[in-house]
């Protein structure tokens, strides 16, 4: 059916509004910070065949995975779906699965006896059981230790909650109330979207709606080739290393070969390391989302984000690598590998596409989990938080300080005052981390240092901070940035500095500092304009030593200026 361009836009706007409503409804009713602050979830609407029509993203990493969950549902159930069904799946190896914590809920929307569309929510549940509180840690031996697996089962059948299944979930997770509360919130968002879709059918007719959805897909596909026109053609390569296999052994080699021609954007990861024994691996879905994120970042920001524009993207990677883990390889901290996949593509292209890409950044989600009892109330708590870090400089701009990495998005940190009141920990500082690094004509942005004191132990710390050994890369003569890590200061004065920690016991009075890296620099540091350096120095973004040694300011002049500016508050500790 042909509809006029205005009606089409009116209906498209209504579908987008429906998607938006579904997205925010989940955040506003969720009971876990990983959803309401980190926005580690996505909502989507697909057509009856599982083609993505609109997707709401809080983070970059779910691009395309929602539609895969719908397609898996269609594959498994076909005609055995009825109105009111909700299918739940978290299998990382199929259906757009990433790790067990990310649970997809899929709901078919019926019109006149057939399925017009699907709604889907994929969200990081606060807890799905397994060996570690919070359900992710780098040292799990296999998928069975990572939590409860939901193999695309009907959690709701014809509107009737499957109480038995719900009881199994409640019994297998550490936070049954929050986990089931979040399920309720997501189910309600799916129902609301369904009700809204019915209204739209009543208002515009099914045919018009169908035509509008087809149009969205058609236009997306037409955009794909135009997108490639913008990009430089050729072969670009990069290699890098992940810190280790999770158990401190040698760095893990990874590589990519990007080929761009008029029709295809091919990324080939052949030659990357086999899967490792720890959970740092990703499955195909995580790799695909990672590649989509990098590809999307190369296009103008106002391009639509539906499936069509990804048509030219071709991904090559043999099975069984760190990027293509197979059952039952553990994957609970999959973002370490998937973010590295994104970063590799960016590294290969950074110099060739300087108006869109910066130098390397702290990259790791730096996921930290603290589990214990509230010092004042004695209530159990689990504080799950990603830590922001420094971004890379680009040809024209200094890197940005303290920003979430590429795998995150509209992701908020948790305020110190909330950490203190709600979790009973003491936050001693939240500051920029000024270790020397990231020098360049444009300098890398600074990471953070956040120090917590444990007022009442024991508190279990689990943290996975990648880029602990190998810092973010510089571009065009810019210096590498600095590394991420966890510093633990015991009451007896011993200090440790690690990238990965699993269920380490912190006692009363111990302090832990999460430190994230400075991003890579861009261009020769000696070429940085002198007036900018004086400003940097005055604001304390660079130290006297850096100004002299890396940037080449004359020591005598620096000393004079520092005197002129006085002592208090101007200079900073480093």
């Amino acid at each position, binding site marked *: 059916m042909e509809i006029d*361009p*205005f009606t*089409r*836009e*009116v209906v498209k*706007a209504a579908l987008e*509004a429906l998607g938006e409503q579904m997205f925010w409804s989940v955040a*506003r*009713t*969720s*009971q876990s*910070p990983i959803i*309401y602050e980190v926005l580690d979830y996505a909502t989507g609407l697909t057509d009856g065949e599982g083609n993505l029509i609109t997707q709401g993203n809080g983070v*970059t990493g779910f691009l395309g995975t929602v539609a895969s969950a719908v397609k898996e549902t269609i594959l498994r159930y076909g005609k055995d779906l009825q109105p009111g069904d909700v299918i739940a799946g978290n299998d990382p190896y199929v259906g757009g699965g990433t790790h067990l914590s990310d649970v997809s809920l899929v709901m078919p929307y019926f019109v006149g006896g057939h399925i017009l569309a699907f709604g889907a929510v994929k969200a990081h549940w606060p807890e799905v059981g397994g060996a570690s509180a919070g359900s992710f840690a780098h040292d799990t031996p296999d998928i069975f230790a990572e939590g409860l697996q939901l193999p695309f089962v009907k959690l709701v059948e014809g509107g009737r909650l499957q109480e038995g299944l719900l009881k199994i979930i409640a019994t297998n997770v550490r936070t049954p*109330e*929050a986990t089931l*509360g979040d399920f309720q*919130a997501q189910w*309600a*968002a799916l129902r*609301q979207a369904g009700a809204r879709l019915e209204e739209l059918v009543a208002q515009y007719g099914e045919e018009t709606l169908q035509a509008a959805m087809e149009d969205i897909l058609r*236009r997306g596909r037409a*955009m794909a080739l135009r997108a490639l026109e913008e990009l430089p053609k050729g072969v670009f390569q990069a290699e890098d290393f992940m810190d280790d296999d999770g158990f401190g052994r040698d760095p893990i080699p990874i590589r990519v070969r990007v080929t761009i021609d008029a029709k295809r954007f091919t990324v080939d990861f052949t030659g990357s390391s086999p899967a490792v024994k720890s959970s740092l691996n990703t499955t195909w879905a995580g790799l695909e989302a990672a590649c989509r*994120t990098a590809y999307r*970042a190369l*296009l*103008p*920001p106002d391009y639509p*984000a539906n499936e069509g524009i990804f048509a030219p993207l071709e991904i090559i990677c043999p099975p069984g690598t760190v990027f293509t883990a197979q059952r039952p390889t553990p994957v609970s901290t999959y973002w370490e590998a998937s973010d590295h996949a994104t970063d590799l593509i960016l590294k290969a292209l950074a110099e060739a596409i300087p*108006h*869109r890409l910066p130098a390397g950044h702290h990259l790791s989600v730096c996921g930290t989990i603290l589990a214990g009892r509230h010092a*004042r109330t004695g209530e159990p708590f689990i504080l799950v938080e990603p830590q922001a870090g420094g971004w890379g400089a680009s040809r024209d701009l200094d890197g*940005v300080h*303290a*920003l*979430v990495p*590429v795998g*995150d998005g*509209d*992701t*908020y940190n948790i*305020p*110190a*005052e909330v950490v*203190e009141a709600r979790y*009973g920990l003491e*936050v*001693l*500082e*939240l*500051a*920029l981390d000024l270790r020397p690094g990231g020098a360049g004509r444009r300098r890398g942005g600074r990471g*953070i240092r956040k120090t917590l004191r444990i007022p009442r132990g024991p508190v279990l710390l689990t943290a996975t901070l990648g880029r602990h050994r190998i810092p973010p890369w510089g571009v065009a003569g810019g210096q590498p940035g600095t590394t991420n890590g966890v510093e633990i200061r015991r009451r007896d004065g011993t200090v440790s500095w690690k990238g990965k920690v699993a269920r380490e016991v912190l006692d009363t009075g111990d302090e832990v500092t999460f430190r994230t890296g400075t991003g890579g620099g861009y261009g020769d540091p000696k070429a940085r304009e002198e007036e900018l350096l004086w400003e940097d120095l005055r*604001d*304390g973004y660079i130290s006297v030593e850096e100004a002299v040694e890396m940037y080449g300011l004359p020591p005598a002049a620096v000393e004079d200026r520092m005197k002129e*500016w*006085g002592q*208090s*508050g*101007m200079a900073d500790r480093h």
Partner: protein
Amino acid sequence: MPTAIFREGMEAMRVAIDIGGTFTDLVALDGETGEVVAAKAGTTPWRLAEGVAAAMDHLGSKAVDLWVHGSTVVINALLQRKGARTALITTKGFRDVLEIGRTQRPDLYNLLYQKPRPFVPRRWRFEVAERISAAGEEVLPLSREDLQAALWAMDREGIEAVAIAFLNSYANPQHEEEAAQLLRSLAPQLRVTLSSALTRQWREYERTSTAVLNAYVQPVVDVYLRELTGLLDELNVSPKRYLFQSSAGIMDLSEAADRPIHLVESGPVGGVMGAAYLAKALHVQQAVTLDVGGTTAKAALILGGEPQWIDEYAIEKTGRQPGYPILIPTVDIVEVGAGGGSMAYRDATGAVRVGPESAGADPGPVAYGRGGTHPTVTDAQLYAGHLAPGPFLGGQLFQGLSQVEGTLAALGAPEGLEAKAVAQGIIRLAQTHMAHALEMVSLRRGLDPRLFHLMAFGGGGGLHAGALLKVIPFKEALIPLHPGVFSAWGMLTAPLKRTWSQTFLQPVAGHEGSWSDRFRTLTDLARSWLRAQGFGDDGQRVRCFWDLRYRGQEHTVRVPVNLGDLQATLTLFHEAHRRTYGFALDQEVEGVHLHAVAQADLSPLPLTPWRRGQARPQPRAFREVLWQGKEPLATPLYWREDLPAGWETAGPAVIEEPSGSTLLWPGQKLAVDPLGILHLWEGR
């Protein structure tokens, strides 16, 4: 037809002055005659008080009894970065909080995303040793040495204003107060803002940002208020002088000097206030407002005759930028980029779009003939006959429609649509965006539009209200008098208002006594403020609100509090949660923020009966107007001045007045009520 309050025999003038981007509007109510006078003067951005003086010239020699002012002085100083040299003093270890912010990247796939730049550079952010715990207990005393050192540095740097924002000061402001006292005694010329004096809500970044922005504008506002005071003294304006706040209340000049950040959002809020006032007078409990201007349309919700408010606002916030948060009560307005100047174009995928880009005043619509090449909503309306070329274009020269026709046809070329269909399509798309804003404040909050009135104003409100009734089934649409200067009128109706907000985290059940005490502490503050303002203490003027959630949730739902019956308040919460999100839970409910709002009407604004109009008004002309369908209909044009109270008609019709027109669609009905307000509804 609703009845209204009539009051006559007022003595002197009440005056409201609303500064906008282009014009400074004046609305005056003559207490003797009940006449409303509207006047305009050019806005003088370099010295706003000049425009105010020019507008006041229109009043002549009448005595001014009440003077209310909505000013852009604060938002201008912020947007143009023309505030004071401002410093920040924080708890040791936290001076970078202002720069770290909340660390989000809302522009997900833009890897060169730039964070908002802090208003206070790092060199002017100082740390002092001190510590208050989350429970409000002193852990480490305030270091006077650190404070002294910061003061020396500020002195050397020529700092004019300073914000103090300590960790956990929301729980106990003692250290902030001590520090302020010391600074004020040692440096009396320094303007000092305490974060805890502006809000007692948690989240250190947001509260620090609020304090910094207040400090940043304070010296600018001091100068402005001095100029205004001089001007008003000269004009013998009564001492009842007030400024209009983002919360749709007013405050006196000395409060404005202390808390200028409350002035940040004035114009659009004035209109919502006016609508709320009219709604009360008309006994309309629930309404949705629509304010259509040149670049945007704004929607707001009125429940129980009151505008709804949020306690966090941000300047410079967009879908891709978080902006700068401000924790002050602000009327909850949803804004979409669809106004008269919004341009229609094809996007990269070839789809037709309307807005958010606006042609603005320059080049303006294609019909101005000043180089505009994309047809705007105004162009489409001119071509469709919804608007007549004339005074509506703000005195702009009208260059004929042939060029408009050309751009419309060009836009429709890919599908071979003719200009008429394109014009209709553009108007419809703009209205879809407006409907989205209206739905966001009604349907999407679980409210049934059939129980709501739509109150439309602004230059374009009447042009779209009728069409929107066809999309969302509101009861009726109301078009007030003077829709073009309705914001200024609304300011005249505003009560004195102040809000106290406090974060306190605790379950409700089992702590009822503690909650009651906390509410009592807040209401005591509110009552003593009311007494200081010269109002009695009958308790009617203080209302409490409670932000509640299921334990574990982050976001809250706000409900009014019945202090005598907290259980009833809980029931309201479950209902509101179900209405908004489609479910309620049998889980523990937790309180997060308490609010007490004190408000007092200075004296009610009299609404005078509409005495104009002719017994049998005749159309002034007929115009070809394109409604639905391909062919235009010869449509009667009425002048609003000609229409008497009680008059009714059926569509199609166009009602014109100097500041806008109202479209009555075929099949719709219209009536003029005793106050002269136009009522539109779907004929059934």
